[in-house]
């Protein structure tokens, strides 16, 4: 048979097969849908691309977060925010970074959300990184490109988690954007993050109320008066004549029966609180329930009415021959490695502590045997702080204790427990332009539903004096909570305020950053990832074992192999051999000189 005939026969056969449409049954493996999510480290994106390329032949790979995927693959040790909010149902695989490759990421990056002007702000950085011989880690904090703090640490080879606190000072009011960088030298591998600190300049409004003159109350009041962060008014009952109190006042303190709610009055410091009368306890309790903070300075065992108010079953008096030191409890102590906080906080020989902390009580300062000498308890929307350091005032010299700075700090802590009437929270507070943001508005007091109709939530573009405010729609979420979502389309990068107002009265304002794109993604502890993987039926692999990833996914998902009918002629590809055979036949024929 000649070649032209062969081609002709092939074309005819294909045409006949197309007309008949033959079918058969064959085994076919399912292609699972895999969602590949890259972490925040600079190398994670590259690794994610490599993994996608490797898996593409066996799985349907989708880059990014897809909740409906058959499997979620995390490249890096970041847990996406969506997974933190709701545990995924699909198996989670995690490819952890190699221990031999230089890598760096935030474990945590923290700073107080709100501070007062003039205060020292500790930027707490927990950095996880892999170092090689000769490496050193440099942590730096910048504001407006200006270097405020820097610390360089020589590190040994291997994987580390380093915790450092870098102090900066809030010098002026407004939003303070701190750019934090962790840099591995000499390679230049680095990770950055931006923290937003709201600096307020309004002083803490303090009422010093001494039931009778005491040295404790006097010296605490003097320490507060010497601190520019506090605006102190005082009333001291120095005597009683025919039951009427003889008082000595400084400023214009409000009457106990008409205490203004915060923020008109933030903290009440009560000296000789053990001698409070019943009506005074009632007035204080009502004010604390409305959201204020009261600090009770005890000179002796409290009267029964005060004891009942504090819900303390009994008191224990501690008398020591030598001065004892009380230290901050966990949570109130400054971060480790803060060289500025190494003094002796509180000294004393005589202490008064509850035999058992009331329910909901939290220790603030404790003796070595964990006896709480300063502690707090929540009362309604407010807080009561009780100080049983009876003779701490006698050790107020600067070289022996930090009396002059400790009590302002404790009062400032008490003031920070005063919840605002309206608070707002933006997530994420630092995001690139075009990102979706959500603001959540919470109201402290009841009965705000009716007032919410007049609220106006606006965000100002940058700069604020050039573009008109944009009003955002608030949606109620019930129980005193509202929220609004919007897509950030800021024209200019920088800090922009979000304001909540009602009838031209500003209720709350919160800053946020647009366009920085350096929100501090924090790495998740490997044990959390392992637990998540175990719960969902996934695995945690080292990046070095990525070659076995396909096999591991197969084992985890076990994609089914199904018998499916197959009709080859229903594919359009048969046209190619059909046309090819016709062309070849024509060409061979013409070459041979035949028509």
């Amino acid at each position, binding site marked *: 048979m000649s070649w032209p005939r062969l081609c002709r026969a092939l074309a005819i056969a294909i045409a006949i097969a197309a007309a008949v449409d033959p079918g058969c049954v064959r085994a076919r493996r399912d292609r699972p849908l895999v969602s590949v999510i890259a972490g925040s480290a600079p190398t994670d994106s590259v690794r994610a691309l490599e993994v996608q390329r490797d898996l593409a032949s066996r799985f349907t790979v989708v880059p990014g977060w897809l909740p409906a995927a058959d499997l979620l693959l995390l490249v890096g040790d970041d847990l996406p925010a969506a997974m933190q909010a709701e545990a995924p149902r699909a198996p989670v695989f995690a490819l952890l970074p190699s221990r031999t490759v230089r890598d760096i990421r935030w474990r945590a990056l923290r700073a107080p959300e709100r501070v007062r002007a003039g205060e020292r702000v500790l930027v707490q950085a927990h950095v996880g990184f892999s170092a090689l011989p000769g490496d050193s880690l440099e942590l730096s904090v910048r504001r*407006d490109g200006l270097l405020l*703090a820097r610390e360089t640490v020589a590190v040994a080879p291997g994987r580390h988690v380093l915790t450092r606190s870098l102090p900066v000072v809030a010098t002026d009011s407004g939003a303070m954007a701190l750019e934090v960088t962790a840099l591995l030298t000499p390679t230049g591998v680095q990770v950055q993050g931006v923290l937003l600190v709201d600096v307020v300049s309004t002083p803490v409004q303090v009422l010093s109320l001494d039931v009778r003159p005491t040295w404790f109350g006097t010296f605490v009041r003097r320490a507060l008066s010497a601190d520019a962060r506090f605006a102190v008014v005082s009333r001291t009952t120095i005597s009683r004549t025919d039951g009427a109190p003889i008082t000595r006042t400084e400023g214009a303190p409000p009457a106990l029966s008409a205490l203004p709610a915060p923020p008109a009055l933030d903290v009440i410091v009560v000296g000789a609180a053990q001698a409070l009368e019943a009506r005074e306890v009632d007035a204080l309790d009502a004010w604390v329930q409305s959201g204020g903070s009261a600090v009770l300075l005890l000179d002796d065992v409290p009267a029964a009415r005060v004891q*009942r108010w504090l819900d303390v079953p009994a008191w224990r008096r501690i008398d020591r021959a030598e001065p004892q030191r009380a230290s901050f409890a966990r949570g109130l102590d400054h971060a480790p490695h803060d060289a500025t906080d190494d003094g002796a906080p509180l000294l004393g020989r005589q202490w008064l502590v509850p035999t058992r902390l009331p329910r909901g009580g939290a220790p603030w300062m404790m003796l070595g045997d964990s006896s709480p000498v300063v502690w707090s308890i*929540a*009362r*309604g929307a407010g807080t009561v702080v009780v100080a049983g350091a009876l003779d701490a005032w006698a050790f107020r010299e600067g070289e022996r204790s930090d009396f002059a700075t400790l009590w302002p*700090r404790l009062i400032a802590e008490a003031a920070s427990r005063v*919840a605002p009437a309206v608070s707002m929270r933006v997530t994420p507070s630092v995001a690139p332009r075009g990102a979706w943001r959500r603001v959540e508005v919470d109201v402290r007091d009841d009965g705000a539903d009716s007032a919410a109709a007049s609220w106006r939530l606006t965000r100002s573009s940058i700069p604020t004096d050039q573009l008109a405010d944009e009003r955002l729609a608030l949606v109620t979420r019930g129980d005193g909570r509202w929220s609004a979502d919007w897509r950030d389309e800021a024209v200019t990068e920088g800090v922009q305020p979000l304001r909540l107002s009602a009838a031209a009265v500003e209720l709350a304002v919160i800053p946020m950053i647009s366009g920085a794109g350096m929100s501090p993604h924090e790495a998740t502890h490997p044990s959390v990832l392992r637990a998540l993987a175990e719960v969902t039926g996934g695995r945690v692999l080292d990046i070095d074992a990525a070659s076995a990833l396909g096999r591991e996914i197969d084992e985890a998902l076990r994609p089914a192999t199904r018998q499916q009918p197959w009709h080859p002629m229903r594919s359009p590809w048969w046209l190619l051999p059909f046309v090819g055979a016709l062309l070849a036949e024509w060409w061979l024929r013409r070459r041979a000189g035949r028509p």
Partner: protein
Amino acid sequence: MSESHASTVPPGAEHAAWLLVWARRATDRRTASAWVGACARMVPMLAIPAALLLWRGASLPWVLLGVGAISALVAAAWAMHRRSRLCIGDALEARVPASRNLLHTALSLAAQPLASMRTDIATHALVQERARTFAQTLDVRAIFPLKTGWLALSVGLTVAALSGLRLLATPAAERSALPSFGATRATDRAAAFAIRTVRVLVTPPAYLGRPDSSSANPLQISVPAAARVQLTVDVNGADSVVLETSGARTVFSTVNGSARAMWRADRDDVLAVQAHRGDAIARTFLGVRVVADADPRVRITAPGRDLVLPRGDTVLRLVVNADDDHALSSLVLRYTKVSGSGERFSFVEGELPLTVRRLDKARWEARADWALAALALEPGDVVVYRAVATDRRPAAPAVESDAWIAEVMSGRGEGAAGFAVDVGELRYALSQQMIVMRIERLLVARDSLGAGLSDEAFAERARNIAVEQRRVRAEFVFLLGGELSEEVAAEDNMGDLNEHQHAEVDADLSTGRVRNEGRQAVQAAIRAMSRSATTLADTALAPALRHAREAVTQLEIAFTRARFLMRPLAERERIDLTRRLTGALSGVGSTVQPRSASPADAEQVALAAALTDLASLARRAGGPDDGARGASADRLQALAATVLRARSADSVTQAIALALNAAAVAVRRGDATRAQSARDQAARLLTQRLSAGAPASATQTRSADAARRERARSRTSGSPP
């Protein structure tokens, strides 16, 4: 013929002929290779000026850039030459039409290799000869017409190149002093008003024997203590020049655009030189680090311990070593012979000549064989001796070594109990200064004896001093009328004060009832003595010494500024005792006082404002506008002055000011990298300084949501009344 030609040759014809020959030779390959060789020889010619420039302080990249530029120019000229030689014939024909292609033909033939010539050699020679003859008739001015514009441009470029070369060759330190273009164009006043140069002449004190040293526009200098620093400030059209230091502000007038200021270096400082003209101010700063002349050190290395001698005619072999950081002046041995016992002592003082060997002017070694027989010592007598050295400082105090004792053993073979007198007498003999001295001696003894002083002995001596400290303190408590009965009775508790009494005094002080500074100072001294006694009991000598010195300082304040410890009351303030306990309770009423304003820390406020300003300047940094750069530099220097005013005598503050000044200089010169680096350094130091004095922020905050939930929970569970 040639002569007639010579008579008609126009001026410059020889040059034209030479040009023709040169052009022809240039076409020869051998000539080209010679050119390459010449270029190769240019390399060392360029290397020599490059080395000179580097030696003068020019930066290596600039020099390499210059050498590269010159090489590129030469290469370009060579390329143009090669290109033009092909066209030179056409150009000559265009300028000299009378040639009728003769010159063009000659050059074309010259450019061809002989082997490729289509004409014979004779024709070639004939054409060349005629072309040469014709070229001698050419007018070179017609060929190269001189254009005034090109001439001016050439001169201008040459001047600019020379100016650039001068700037390049100026050392970096001097170059910074040159008025920058940015500063010149910044403002009108800055254009004519700037500090051009600050020349510093340091004259060390004469006893050092060092020559004067000078420098121009330094940012920081180190000078020996007591040196005279002469500043010569060259400034354009200033009314006056002000030299501002941490302790003084001195105004100098300018003469012929120059002012001369003198300053005696007695402590570290930053000198702010400000030139004033009307409202305009030009500033520059100079950091001065004063290196103090240390006291000499003198030690008796042999025998180097106390001796108990069996007889009084012993010969002591003494070795004394002394050294100084500059030069020693004298070294002698002084002794005191103590004879007698009980309450009868006699003292004889004397001086022993030493044989001094000068290892160099700053290290001496002295020896002596001291025959004690000359002192006629008897059993129980004691000789106390110490070496005394001075350096060359005028009126410098003599420095003594440790004093050692040589005691002649008494009959029973026991050493005397020293100079212990009756405890009661000692109480009155002691003073706070002596406590300081005793602590210092114990510290020196511990350091010099090393292992020789056991821990027990050291602690015992420290405790003894603590007891003495308490007694001194008791004297002053008595002086103020304090109640000492409990303190004397309870010796163990004397390290602490009666806090209630002190709190009452504090209350009096705070309300202004006790206005006597002397009383306050004595109170402070008593407190410092308490701390000293406490730390001495813990054998912590360093803090004890600090507290003891503080007590001395406070006592000096008390007894120099306010000698009257008890404030006399004026007649109208006198208390009328007849009215005590005679009033009616119904008349007692409440008092209202104004609220005390919170005193802000002025230094902290000033430094915080400086950091804020620096941040705003950093935000605006990097602008290309020279005027803005000049304004930023002015602002940075004003910030430096502000920081210095906040706390001038502090070394950190001085470092901040110098960094700000360096940033200003860099900004003015348009050096963005250095400006950023200097700003960063200043901001970091400012933050460190502010952090040290700033209160810590609160650790937690509470949201409205948390408060509402807490209230709901307490309602559910119920709170106690």
